[in-house]
C-alpha cells in the first residue's frame, strides 16, 4: 500500500509539471493541461498523506 501510494505521488508530481512543459512546447492545449494539473493535485493529496510524515 505504502509503495503504491509513493508511486502514485510520483506520478502526481509528473502530472503537475509535465503538462505545462508540453504546453510550452506546443504539444498540448491549455484546457487539457489545466485538467491534468487538477487531476494530479487530487492524486497528490490523496496518495501522499498515506506515506509522508507517518512514523
Amino acid at each position, binding site marked *: 500500500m505504502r509503495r503504491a501510494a509513493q508511486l502514485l505521488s510520483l506520478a*502526481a*508530481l509528473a502530472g*503537475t*509539471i509535465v503538462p*505545462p*512543459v508540453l*504546453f*510550452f*512546447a*506546443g504539444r498540448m492545449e*491549455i484546457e487539457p*493541461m*489545466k*485538467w491534468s*494539473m*487538477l487531476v*494530479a*493535485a487530487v492524486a*497528490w*493529496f490523496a496518495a*501522499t*498523506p498515506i506515506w*509522508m*510524515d507517518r512514523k
Partner: protein
Amino acid sequence: MADERKAPHAEPVDEYEREPVPEHALLGFSSFVGQYAGEHTAGTELMIGPLFIASGVSAPAVVGGLLIGNLLAVLSWMFLTAPIAVRARMTVYYQLEKICGRTLVTGYNLANGVMFCFLAGAMVTVNATALGLWFGVDMPGLNDLYPNGLGWVLTVLVMGALMTVVAAYGYKVVARIANIAAPWMVLVFIAYGIVAARQLGIDSVESFWPKAKELIWTGGEPLAGRAKFTFWHVMFFAWFCNMATHIGMADLSLFRYARKSWYAVGSAAGMYLGHFIAWLSASILYAHQLHATPGNTDVLPGPLAYNSAGVAGVLCVIVAGWTTANPTIYRAGLAFQAMAPRSSRYRVTLLTGALATIAGLFPAIAMKLLDFVALYGLALMPMGAVIFVDFWLARRFGFRPNYADRSGAAFNWAAAVAWVATLVVCLAVVNAGGMQIYFVGLPGWFLAAALYIVVSRIVQGKETRS
C-alpha cells in the same frame, strides 16, 4: 516571506523555551532544507513578483538582484544568525530577555505580534482573491487602500474566520498539510511561469531571455504610484525581506535545533525556490495579464493563477496562503500571550486572527507588500544588532553581556535606546531625507550596534562607579 518559525516539522509546543536545546533534540540538515523550501513558497510570493513589474524593473536588474540579494540573505543566516544559535541554543525571546529584561522584551513581543498580524492579514487578502474569484466578487485594484465593496468585505471575513478557527483548533492538521503540500506547491509555482511564458508567445528556451526583456521585465516606467526599481532595489529587497529573521536574529529560535551552524545553508532552498523561481513565475503571470488585458493592473493572485493553471492553480494559492498564515497567526498569538501568560492560548489566537482579518480587509497592506515587508524587517532588526554585539563583542568593548540577567534589571536602557533611536533615525531618513526604505536597513544595523555599545558602556560604567 518572513514569518516566525520553530523547530522544523514540529507543532508549536513550548519546548526548551527557557533552557538550551539538549543534544538529543537536535535535528539534521534535511529538516532545515524542507522547512525553508515550504515556508518561503507562500501565497504572498504571488503578490511580490507582480509588484516588481509594477515598479518597472528590467530583466537584468530583477534576475541579477535576486541572485545576489538571496545569496546575501543565505550568508546572513550562515554567518550571523546560526553561529550564535548553535552556541547559545536559546529562543530569541529568552536570549533577549537575558539582555534586555522582562519589561523591554514585552515591548518586543508587542511589536512582533502586531507585525505578524499585518503579515497574516496580507495572507488573508491573498486567499480572499482566490475565494472571491469563485463568487464573482468585485475585488480591489492595485492602488486601492480601503475595502472596495460589501462582497470583498464578506469574502475576507469568511476566509479570515476560517483561517483563524483552524489556527486556534486545527494547527496540527494544517501544519501537516503544509509538509505534504510543499513539493507539489513548488512545482505549481514553476508551472505558473512556464505556462504564462508560453501564453506570452515565448515558445523556446533560447527565446526566453530576449523576449523576457521585451515582454516581461521591460525596465520601463513604473505604474502610477510606484517607485522605479533598479538592480539595487531588488538586491536589497531580496536580502532584507527576511531581515527580521536573519540579521534581526528571530531565527535563533529555529537554528538552536541545528547540529552545525552550516546547516543554515539550507535556507538557500527557500530563497532560490521561493524568492527566485516563485517571484519570477508570479512576475510572468502578471506580465501575461498586462498583455492579454491592457489596462488591467490589478494584482490578484487568485485570478492570475486561474488564468494560467486553472483550478489547480487557484488551489495552490489557497494552500500556499493558508499554510503560511496558519503559523503566522499562531506565532502572533504566542507573542501576545507572552505579555499575558495567564490568558487562554485559544482565546488569544482567536483574537489575533480577528485582528489579522481586519487587517486583511484593507488591500493596502497586500498592494504595498514590498514596503510593508521592508518596514517589518526594519522594526525588529535593531534587536538583532543588540544580540550580535552582546554575544560577540561585549567584553571586547568593556561591558558585561546578558546585562539584565546578571543585574536583575527589568529594562536595559542601552538596548531600548539602540532599538528606538535606530528606528526613529531610519524612518526620519526615509520620510524626511527621501531615501527609500529598502536602503536604510544596512546602515541602521550598524547604527543600532554602535548605539548599544556606547550606551551600554555609559550605563554599566555608572553602576560600577556607584
